[in-house]
């Protein structure tokens, strides 16, 4: 009779259990889409064997922004100000470029009060995972329309929404994002795969995840509701992540006789490959025009397309364009922080 290793079965490469990747107990409404995304972050980090101390969690203000407290309890976290998370991430990652960051925002936090910072952090290409938990509604203040709410939608207390919805994935591409995806919190596998891929990206990765608010915006007629998502979500691709050392298997698959054209292999800078199997939408995320077109078309046809929308070879990151040392600034020793007395004397001569 074989003995089953009782302890090691439920630990990852770091010897940690999934439990070690959890945070505090969620205080969101039961059934909230956001909790499902938090769960995928926990699973992803556990399965990937993420070193939690090398990652910082960030958020703004709102229901979604509460969630960093509910995952990765061994990572430092910063629940900052409404709409201002991007600037806080920027500062932290300039202070220590060796760290990774996952930031969670909402459609109000990003699409309204934080639209400026959203656009500018993308433009600067600060490398982190920017998750928008998009439910089209303000939850904490009890059900006002957000800027991503459907045009013409009715809500009990606020009547009709007269304004067009802002497409945050499209905004991200226009601002210069190099990794843009749309997903649905009900599609756990896709969410997890996209977040994993996003963490490998050297640049800003924006994930616009439709994450229903079960309390204020879950009418089947709303495109941000569970019933709607479950019924209408169309994955553009089947996504598979191939690790850098997966080369042989990659070839095997090709040898297996699969037609080459059925796959799009997106090569990431660290050697990871995002393998996309087309599911009939014929979308190549490596084309910016195609990416914008597919979003525009989805909007016109009122279809809910998910998956990797856009991917670009990484542009220069902010730390690179500022020509910073490779080592995190905050880890530099004291002697690197103060020039010599002779340097000051020399400088003073110039002002005599």
């Amino acid at each position, binding site marked *: 009779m074989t003995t089953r290793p009782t302890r090691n079965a439920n630990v990852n490469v770091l010897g940690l259990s999934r439990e*070690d990747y959890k945070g505090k107990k969620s205080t969101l409404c039961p059934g909230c889409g956001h909790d499902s995304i938090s769960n995928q972050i926990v699973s992803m980090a556990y399965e990937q064997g993420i*070193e939690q101390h090398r990652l910082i969690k960030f958020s703004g203000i709102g229901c979604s922004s509460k969630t960093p407290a509910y995952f990765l309890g061994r990572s430092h976290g910063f*629940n900052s100000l409404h709409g201002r998370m991007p600037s*806080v991430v920027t*500062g932290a*990652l300039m202070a220590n470029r060796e760290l990774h960051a996952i930031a969670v925002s909402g459609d109000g936090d990003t699409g309204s009060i934080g639209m400026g910072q959203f656009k500018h952090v993308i433009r600067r290409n600060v490398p982190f995972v920017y998750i928008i938990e998009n439910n089209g509604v303000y939850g904490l203040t009890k059900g006002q329309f957000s800027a991503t709410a459907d045009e013409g939608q009715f809500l009990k207390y606020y009547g009709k929404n007269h304004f067009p919805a802002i497409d945050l994935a499209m905004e991200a591409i226009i601002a210069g994002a190099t990794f843009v995806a749309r997903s649905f919190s009900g599609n756990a596998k896709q969410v997890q795969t996209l977040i994993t891929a996003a963490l490998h990206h050297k640049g800003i990765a924006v994930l616009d995840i439709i994450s229903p608010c079960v309390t204020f915006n879950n009418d089947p007629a709303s495109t941000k509701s569970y019933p709607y998502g479950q019924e209408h979500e169309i994955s553009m691709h089947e996504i598979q992540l191939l690790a850098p050392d997966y080369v042989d298997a990659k070839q095997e698959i090709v040898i297996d006789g699969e037609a080459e054209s059925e796959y799009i292999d997106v090569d990431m800078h660290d050697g990871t490959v995002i393998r996309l199997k087309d599911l009939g939408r014929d979308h190549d995320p490596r084309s910016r025009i195609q990416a914008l077109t597919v979003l525009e078309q989805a909007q016109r046809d009122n279809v809910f397309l998910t998956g990797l929308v856009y991917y670009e070879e990484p542009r220069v990151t902010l730390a690179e364009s500022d020509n910073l040392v490779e080592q995190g600034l*905050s880890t530099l020793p004291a002697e*690197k922080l103060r020039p010599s007395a002779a340097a000051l004397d020399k400088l*003073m001569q110039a002002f*005599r």
Partner: protein
Amino acid sequence: MVVTLPTEHQQSIPQQRLVNDFAFAVATANGSGSQTSNNVLVKTLFDMGIPVNGKNLFPSNIKGLPTWYTIRASKDGYTARRATTEIVVAYNRDTAAEDIANLPKGGVCIIPSDWKWGRTRDDIVWYEVPVKDIMAQTQIETDFRKRVENMTYVGVMASLFNLPMDMIYTALLANFGGKEKPTKMNFNVIELAYQWAQQSLTKQDPFTFEKMDGNVGKILITGNEAAGIGAIFGGVQVVAWYPITPSTSMVDAIISYRHLRRDETGKETVAVVQSEDELSAAGMIIGAGFAGARSLTSTSGPGISLMTEFAGLAYFAEIPCVIWDVTRMGPSTGLPTRTSQADLLSTHFLGHGDTRQIVLLPGKPEEAFEYGWRAFDVAEHMQMPIFVVSDLDLGMNNWMSDPFQYPTEELDRGKVLNAQQLQEFIDKNGKWGRYMDVDGDGIGWRTLPGTDHPMAAWFARGTGHDEMANYSERSDVWLRNMTRLRHKLETARTYLAEKIGPVTDIDTNKKVGIMTFGTNEPAIQEARDLLAREGIETNYMRVRALPLAPSVTEFIRQHERIYVIENNFDGQLNQVIRVDHPEDLTHLVSLALGDGLPMTAQWIYDNVKADKEKQS
């Protein structure tokens, strides 16, 4: 009391020779290149060893609006601005009538003869300069002439007031960063004007400059440059900023000198990010402070307003960072290019709820440099945002200064636990929480992101939190936290008093005191001398930080009458003193004048004297 507005004192000028003790104003149009001419004049006087100041009174405009530059030479070392100048260079036709009217009897007007202005006063000396003719003699292209014609008044002044031409050349060369081509082109104009003046003008005024040794060892520098250099020597690591007058040149200085911190591979150890607005700049430095870097932004009043919410977050989440406010006139856009000390209350209380911030108050370049590095030590020691409130006068004008002293203290990184220290902490105290006050000073121990220990993480938040940094809405937890924050501020009060206590000049026999902060010292010291001559002996205290040092209490109690002198409308230091000292302070007299200009000795003297006369 009701303060009097500044008045012009048009005393006649004596006819005997007046050496190294007079002031002149240069009136030009903004953007006409006069800054170079004026810098050269100030630098030449400085190099001659004559104590000098130069104050640029400029408009919020790129080109065309009137601008004045006042230069005061004082053999006795008085470097405050004077409201009246004996000499005017009237090179701006739009303001010439007023500029000429402001001259005292016996004053001097240097004016282009091309305007055919006429001698509109017969009690002053006129020197009419044929600017066009002089410029016509140069080889300079017509298009370019306008930009260098201000050099003509430099040449005329050199001739009239005895400025050595070789020193002017040196000053000009320094101004152009050692580049000979522009130096020679400009100097050629100065020479032609000088020669014309030598041949054509008969000196009719008593003013002259002579070399002396009043500036031995001194440097000439703006406060913003001093602050920027200070930040470099203070180990600044992340700078985020949004351009705003009058703070911009501080970040310019950091950029200019960040090469001093470049590593051997040519990479930077000082990150500089120009943000999309001041909100974002504040967010960036708070993110950087959280991640363990020394971070700084530099702004002015409107930026401070925008940073309010973040300032409250940094106070409450206890994130170190440094915010410089080079103050300009508010409310609102106000007078963007005029000086002010009106952000004292707004910075001290910045943030909604019961926020109380630490404010450092430099009054001269040496202090701008010192607080440039020290502010990081205070921020990391106290785990708070630190506001350094300078002003346009200090920030943008050239000041004579002692060379800066190399920091006398090692970097103070505050209470930070690495993985090993964290374990020791836990072994000793049973657990670690970000906001546990184990030392009784109100300051907790923090860990930085990246610390490899399973218990190192904590969650920074602006929401209510307990000692473990966990979310809490409990009243008792909230009160405990606020009480500790207040206690921390008391720790700061003592700490600041030790490091940068008030500057004082106290003789316990004197019963009249003067209190101030920031850049008013030159005017006050001059006024104190004037008052002493009238038998009004005064003691002096210049506070350099908020919360106020304990010695302020003593000073208040020692005196029968105290004048609180400041460059704002509301008497803000006076108000801060009253917050700390709710007891009856009827002997405190607020002398506050916020008129957009650096303070003058005359105004202080007039108001103190008037009050003393009313009393007796």
